[in-house]
C-alpha cells in the first residue's frame, strides 16, 4: 500500500492532474475574530505585515503597486526566498502558529540554521505570531499568493478566500473553525532563477478603499460646499487624486503631488518630505501631516517610519560632526547626568560610542517602492528650520544599555535586554507626528510615535513637543509585543525597564536643555537696563518656570515704516510684530509721558507674547493672528487699568 500523498505533494502534482488542491483555512474562532475584526488600525498596518514578511524572507526589494486613486487592487511583491508548497500548506493550516523561531522553521528552511531568531541571510526576524499574512483580511476577503523559489521550474498560486462557511455553527471560542479556503496549483515558470512572492489583494473592501482614497475628507468638502457654496474643509495640500464617484473610469480631482512624473523613485519621496517640512514656513510654524497629506500619502509616510528601511539622510548615529548639532552621552541611572560628547573631527557618535544599530547583516539592502516612489525613513536631523527658540542648535542625546537581570530568574525577567537609543531635541519637530518616542524591536516598529513618552508625567509640554526619540532594541522585549505589533504589555519587565530608562533620559535632556538656555539668556540679559523691564522679565521667567518652561523667547516690535519685514526678523529667530498690528494708533504728537506709557505697553505686550509662546499657544496661529491675539488681550488688560 502506498502512503497517501500529502497536500504539498498534491500541489506539486497539479501540473499533471490539472486540478487545484483545496485546503480549508482552519483557525480558532478567537484568532479569526482578531484578524477579521481589526486588530490593525490602518491600512498601513496590514501592508506593514506583508513588508515584514518580505524582510523575513530575505527580500532585497519590495514593490507595492496600486491603481491609485481607484484602489481596486494592490500588489505587494518581493524578491525573497519564496514559499514552497510545504510551507504554503503549513502556513494555511497553522494560522496563528508561525514556524519562525521554531524547529519547524529550520526544517522548512525559512530561518537560519545557526539561530532560529534570524533569517537565512542573518536578519533578525520580525514575524513570530503567524497571523501577519492574514492581516490582509483588513483589505479584502479575496487574494492571490503567487510565489516562486529559486531553482524550481514552477510557481505556486494560492487563490485564497476568507470568511466563515455558512454551515459552521457558532461554537465556543477555542474550537477550530473553517474560516476560508485556499485553492492551490502550480504553473510552469520559464525563469528558473527567479524567486519571490507576490500577494495580490483583489476586490478591496469598500471600507478600505474609502480609507485609502480619503473618502471621508472629500465627502466633507462636497457636503459643505453643497450646503453653503463654500467649504470650511479644504483639500489636502498634497494628494493622489480622487475618482469620480459617479464614473469609475474618471478622476474628479487630479493628483497634486510634490514631485514630477520625471523624478526618479528616490527623488519623489525626498521631495515629499522636503515639501511637507517646508510648509512650516508659512503658517504658525508646525506641520500636521494629517492636514497636509491625504491618507494615501500618510500611508506611505507611516510605512516609511515603521519598516526596516534606511533613513532618508543620515542615521542619527552617523550625523557628521559639524557645529550645528551638540552631542551628549546619556547615563544609565535613574538620576543620571548627560555628558557632552566630544566627537573628533571626521568621526561620528557611532564610532565614539561603538553603536551597532540597526544590527543588520553586512551589506544588507532592503528597498521599498510604492507606485514608483522609493520610501525611506523621513526623520531628518540636519537643516532644522529656524525658530524663535533661544537655543538655535539641535541637541542629540545618545545612549546604549544592556541589562542582564543577573540576580533575577530569567522566567520572570524575560532574560537580558539590550538597546541603543537617541533623543533628538530641536525647537520644531516636523511634522508634529514625529513628536514622541518610537520603539523598534530588531529593525521594525509599530506605526506611530508615542507622544506620551511612555507615560512621562512631568508637565513639560513644550519641551516634550520638541523631542523625537527612537529606541532600538537588539535583544529582549519580544515577549512584550502584543498581537497587533503596535502596542505592548506594560507589565512586562522589559517594558518597565525601558520606561524608567526613557524617563531618566528625558530628565537628563531637560536639565541640559535648561542649562544651555540659561547660559544664553544670562548673556543677553546683561545688556538690558530699565528697571520695569527687568521686573516684568523676572515675572515672566518665573511664571514660565513654574509650569516647566524655561525658554523665554525674544520679542521685538517693529515700526511699520521699517523696511525689514516681520518675517525677515522672524527668520532670525526673534518673535517680531508690527507695532501698528498690536498697539492703537499712536501717530499723534508724543509728549514725554505718553512716550513712557508706550514703553510700558510694549513691555507688557512683550511679556504677554512670551507667556503665550511659552505655553505653546501661538504655535498654530499665523503671524497676523498672533498679533491680533496679543493686541486684544493687551486691550483688556489696559481697560482694567482705567486707561
Amino acid at each position, binding site marked *: 500500500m502506498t502512503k497517501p500523498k500529502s497536500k504539498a505533494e498534491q500541489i506539486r502534482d497539479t501540473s499533471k492532474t490539472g486540478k*487545484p488542491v483545496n485546503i480549508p483555512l482552519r483557525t480558532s474562532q478567537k484568532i479569526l475574530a482578531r484578524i477579521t475584526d481589526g486588530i490593525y488600525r490602518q491600512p498601513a498596518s496590514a501592508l506593514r505585515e506583508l513588508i515584514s514578511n518580505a524582510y523575513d524572507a530575505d527580500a532585497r526589494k519590495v514593490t507595492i503597486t496600486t*491603481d491609485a486613486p*481607484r484602489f*481596486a487592487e494592490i500588489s505587494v511583491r518581493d524578491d525573497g526566498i519564496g514559499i514552497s508548497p510545504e510551507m504554503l500548506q503549513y502556513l494555511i493550516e497553522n494560522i496563528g502558529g508561525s514556524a519562525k523561531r521554531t524547529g519547524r522553521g529550520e526544517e522548512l528552511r525559512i530561518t537560519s540554521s545557526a539561530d532560529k531568531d534570524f533569517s537565512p541571510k542573518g536578519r533578525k526576524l520580525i514575524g513570530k505570531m503567524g497571523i501577519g499574512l492574514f492581516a490582509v483580511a483588513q483589505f479584502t476577503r479575496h487574494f492571490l499568493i503567487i510565489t516562486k523559489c529559486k531553482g524550481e521550474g514552477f510557481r505556486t498560486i494560492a487563490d485564497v478566500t476568507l470568511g466563515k462557511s455558512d454551515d459552521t455553527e457558532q461554537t465556543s471560542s477555542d474550537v477550530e473553525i473553517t474560516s476560508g479556503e485556499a485553492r492551490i496549483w502550480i504553473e510552469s515558470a*520559464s525563469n528558473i532563477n527567479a524567486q519571490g512572492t507576490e500577494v495580490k489583494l*483583489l*476586490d478591496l473592501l469598500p471600507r478600505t478603499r474609502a480609507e485609502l482614497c480619503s473618502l471621508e475628507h472629500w465627502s466633507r468638502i462636497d457636503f459643505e460646499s453643497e450646503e453653503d457654496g463654500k467649504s470650511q474643509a479644504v483639500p489636502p495640500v498634497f494628494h493622489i487624486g480622487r475618482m469620480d464617484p459617479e464614473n469609475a473610469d474618471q478622476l474628479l480631482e487630479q493628483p497634486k503631488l510634490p514631485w514630477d*512624473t520625471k523624478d526618479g523613485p528616490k527623488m519623489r519621496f525626498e521631495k515629499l518630505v522636503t515639501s511637507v517640512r517646508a510648509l512650516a514656513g508659512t503658517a504658525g510654524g508646525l506641520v500636521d501631516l494629517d492636514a497636509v497629506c491625504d491618507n494615501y500619502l500618510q500611508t506611505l509616510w507611516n510605512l516609511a517610519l515603521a519598516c526596516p528601511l534606511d533613513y532618508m539622510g543620515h542615521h542619527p548615529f552617523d550625523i557628521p560632526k559639524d557645529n550645528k548639532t551638540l552631542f551628549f552621552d546619556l547615563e544609565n541611572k535613574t538620576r543620571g547626568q548627560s555628558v557632552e560628547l566630544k566627537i573628533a573631527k571626521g568621526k561620528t557618535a557611532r564610532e565614539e560610542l561603538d553603536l551597532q544599530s540597526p544590527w543588520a547583516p553586512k551589506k544588507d539592502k532592503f528597498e521599498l517602492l510604492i507606485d514608483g516612489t522609493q520610501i525611506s525613513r523621513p526623520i531628518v536631523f540636519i537643516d532644522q528650520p529656524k525658530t524663535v527658540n533661544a537655543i538655535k542648535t539641535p541637541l542629540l542625546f545618545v545612549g546604549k544599555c544592556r541589562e542582564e537581570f543577573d540576580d533575577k530568574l530569567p522566567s520572570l525577567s524575560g532574560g537580558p535586554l539590550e538597546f541603543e537609543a537617541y533623543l533628538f531635541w530641536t525647537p520644531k519637530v516636523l511634522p508634529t507626528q514625529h513628536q514622541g518616542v518610537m520603539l523598534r524591536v530588531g529593525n521594525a516598529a509599530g506605526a506611530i510615535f508615542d507622544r506620551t513618552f511612555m507615560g512621562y508625567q512631568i508637565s513639560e509640554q513644550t519641551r516634550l513637543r520638541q523631542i523625537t526619540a527612537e529606541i532600538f532594541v537588539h535583544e529582549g522585549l519580544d515577549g512584550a509585543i502584543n498581537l497587533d505589533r503596535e502596542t505592548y504589555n506594560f507589565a512586562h519587565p522589559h517594558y518597565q525597564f525601558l520606561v524608567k530608562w526613557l524617563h531618566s533620559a528625558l530628565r537628563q535632556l531637560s536639565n541640559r536643555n535648561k542649562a544651555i538656555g540659561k547660559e544664553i539668556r544670562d548673556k543677553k540679559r546683561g545688556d538690558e537696563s530699565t528697571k520695569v523691564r527687568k521686573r516684568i522679565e523676572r515675572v515672566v521667567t518665573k511664571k514660565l518656570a513654574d509650569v516647566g518652561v524655561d525658554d523665554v523667547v525674544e520679542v521685538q516690535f517693529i515700526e511699520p515704516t521699517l523696511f525689514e519685514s516681520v518675517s525677515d526678523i522672524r527668520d532670525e529667530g526673534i518673535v517680531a510684530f508690527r507695532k501698528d498690528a498690536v498697539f492703537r494708533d499712536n501717530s499723534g504728537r508724543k509728549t514725554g509721558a505718553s512716550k513712557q506709557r508706550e514703553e510700558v505697553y510694549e513691555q507688557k505686550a512683550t511679556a504677554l507674547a512670551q507667556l503665550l509662546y511659552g505655553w505653546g499657544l501661538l504655535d498654530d496661529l499665523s503671524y497676523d493672528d498672533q498679533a491680533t491675539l496679543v493686541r486684544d488681550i493687551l486691550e483688556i488688560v489696559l481697560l482694567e487699568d482705567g486707561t
Partner: protein
Amino acid sequence: MTDKSSDLSDDIVPEAPRHSSFDRKFEPWHKVRKEFVRKEQWNKFVIRYVKRHLKRELQAEGVNEWSTDDEMLDIPETISVAYPLKCLVIPGDDILDIRSLCRDTENIKCYIRYLGFNEGQGSDRVGTRVHIAHNEVTSHPRVSTHSLVLCDRFQMVAKPNSQAYRYMKEFGPFHVVNLDLCDSLFPTTSGDLESYYNALYRMSAFQMKEMATPWLLFITTQAAPKEVDASQLDMLCKPTKDNVLISTEFAAAISDLVPTAALNTGTSAPVDCSQLNERQLIDLFGVAIGKALLKFCSTATPKWKVGMLGSHIYSIYEPLNVSMLSLAFKFSPVTAPPQDSTGLSSIDLPTPTSFNESELATKLVAAVRNISNIDEILAADPELKTRLTESSADLLKSAGYDRNVYLQWVKDGEQTSLG
C-alpha cells in the same frame, strides 16, 4: 423588509469572490500567423529601433534613476537597465507580446518597462490569468517590476481626466506603442472607430509633446470590408482627398492603388465604396489612417514626420473575408540645427531634416502597396512556417499551454470558436 430604493447597504457587504480556474483554450491570436506578426514585424522593428535610437539616446542621457542596484547586478549590460524601453501595450490575457519581445531581445539585452491596458482584470477568472501572467513576465530579469497592467480600456485615454490617461502620463512617454486591438479601427457599421480614433489622437498628441526622439506605433485591427461604414470611411479619408487635390504626385501614386474616381475628390460627394473591391477598401483605409497620422504630425509644433514600416495583412475568418491588418509606423521629430550663412564658421552641423508632406504621403502609398499577405508568405515557405510554429509553441508553453496539444491544434487547422 428592505426598502428597495434604499442605498444604505451599498458598499458595505463585499461582492462574493469569483473563482479562478486554469484551463486554456486556443484563440485566433494563437495562430501561427500572429507569431509572424510578433516576430517579423513588431519585434524586428523594435530591435532595429533599440539599436539605432535607444542605445544612442542612452549615451547622451547617462544613468537613469529608475534602475536600482539590484537590476544592475542582474544584468551584465547595465547600460540597458539604465534606460528601459518603455512600451504601451494592449497585452491580452497571457501578455504574449511582452513575452515574445523579451525572448527576441535576448541578444540586445534591452530592459523593458510596460504599461498595459486590459479591462478584463480584477478577481474573475481572466483577471487571475492576467495577474499570473504579469507576475511571470515581470520575473524576467529584463522586465521591470514597475510595469503595470491597468484594468481600463485603452479607449479611455481619449479623456484627459480618465484613470487611463493619468497612467499614460505616469508611465510615458513611450518608445513603443503597440495597439493590438481586439476590435476594429477599420470603420464598420458595428465598430468602434470613433472611440479608438479619439484615443489614438490623444495618445499621439501626448507622445509628440513629451518625446524628443523617434517612437514606434503598431496598430493591429480587424478589417471587415463587407461591413464598411461609408460615411465614417469618408471622414477618415478627408486628409487623403485633400492631398490628392494639391499633389499630382500623390494623386498618381494613389491611382495605382484605388480608382481615383471612387474618391470623389473636389466634390461634396463621399467616397463611393461600391467602386472599390475589398482589398482596395482595405488599402484605402491603410492610406487614410497613415495620412491622418501624417496630418497630426504636420500640424504639430515642433513638427514630426511619420512613415509606414513593413506592414501585413492576414485572414482570420476566410468565409466572411475578415482580415487583420498589422500596420507599423515610425514617428520622428523634424529637427533643424541653426545654420550659419556668413561662411565664417567651418563647423559642420547636420543638415536639417527635410519635410515635405506630399512626398511623405506618396511614400505612404508605396508602403501600403507593399503590405504583404502573411497567409501567402507562410504557404510559400513551409520552412518558415515550421520555424514559427515551433517558436509559437514555445511561447505558449511559457504561458502555461500544453505544447503538444498546441502543435496538434495547428496541425488540425487552427480551429477556434471564432472560426
